[in-house]
């Protein structure tokens, strides 16, 4: 039985990407539009975390000889892309917040 594959890597991904969601939440006016944006960010984080977990799982299978090198490459590439996307959106969010904080009141 393969050991439970909850990767430290996957948890970091979730943490890293969602770390600013709290900041995003705090300054927003309550409206349908805002929660959709927050949900979208949360989805990106989850999706990235899930692809990393999937990549880890396929990697483990490959080490046991049950998956091909090709499958490993594909899932790892997918995980990298999901992660890059989530991180890019987070970075944009950080930049936007910084701009907002610089606005004269």
């Amino acid at each position, binding site marked *: *039985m*393969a*050991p*439970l*594959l*909850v*990767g*430290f*890597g996957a948890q*970091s*991904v979730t943490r*890293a*990407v969602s770390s600013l969601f709290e900041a995003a939440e705090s300054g927003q006016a309550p409206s349908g539009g805002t929660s959709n944006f927050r949900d979208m960010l949360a989805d990106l984080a989850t999706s990235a975390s899930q692809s*990393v977990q999937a*990549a*880890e799982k396929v*990697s*483990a299978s*490959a*080490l*046991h*000889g049950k998956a091909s*090198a090709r499958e*490993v490459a594909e899932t*790892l590439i997918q*995980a*990298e892309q999901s*992660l*890059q996307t989530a*991180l890019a959106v*987070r*970075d944009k969010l950080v930049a936007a917040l910084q701009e907002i904080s610089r606005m004269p009141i």
Partner: protein
Amino acid sequence: MVESAILQLTHRHAQWLMARQKVLSENIAHASSPGYRAIDVEPFEKLVAAGGLDLRATSPRHLRIAQDGTRAIGTRVQRAFETSHSGNTVSLDQQLVTANEVKQAYMLNSSIVKSLNRLLSSAIKG
């Protein structure tokens, strides 16, 4: 810091591959030795199922006591496909095929480790 499950697995897999490399080095070195029986390592699945990274309890199947991390990886006599008149069961062709398997598996292992580390780094650094 605790290593993630997948990195623990790649670590164990690498140890298994190193043990296998040693075993086939020995088989090939003894290819002309009268009476020598070719050996192989226990399958990787068996090692993972046994669990634990340090099995201190000795077992009759642990023919080797090594101090290089391959300590608990048991070996066993290989089924002989051919035996020379002197009792030697090493087939060089078979050994070289196994050698190739070890190399490929090691390449896969190190690629996985590199990629996962890269993923982790970018997640932390952003």
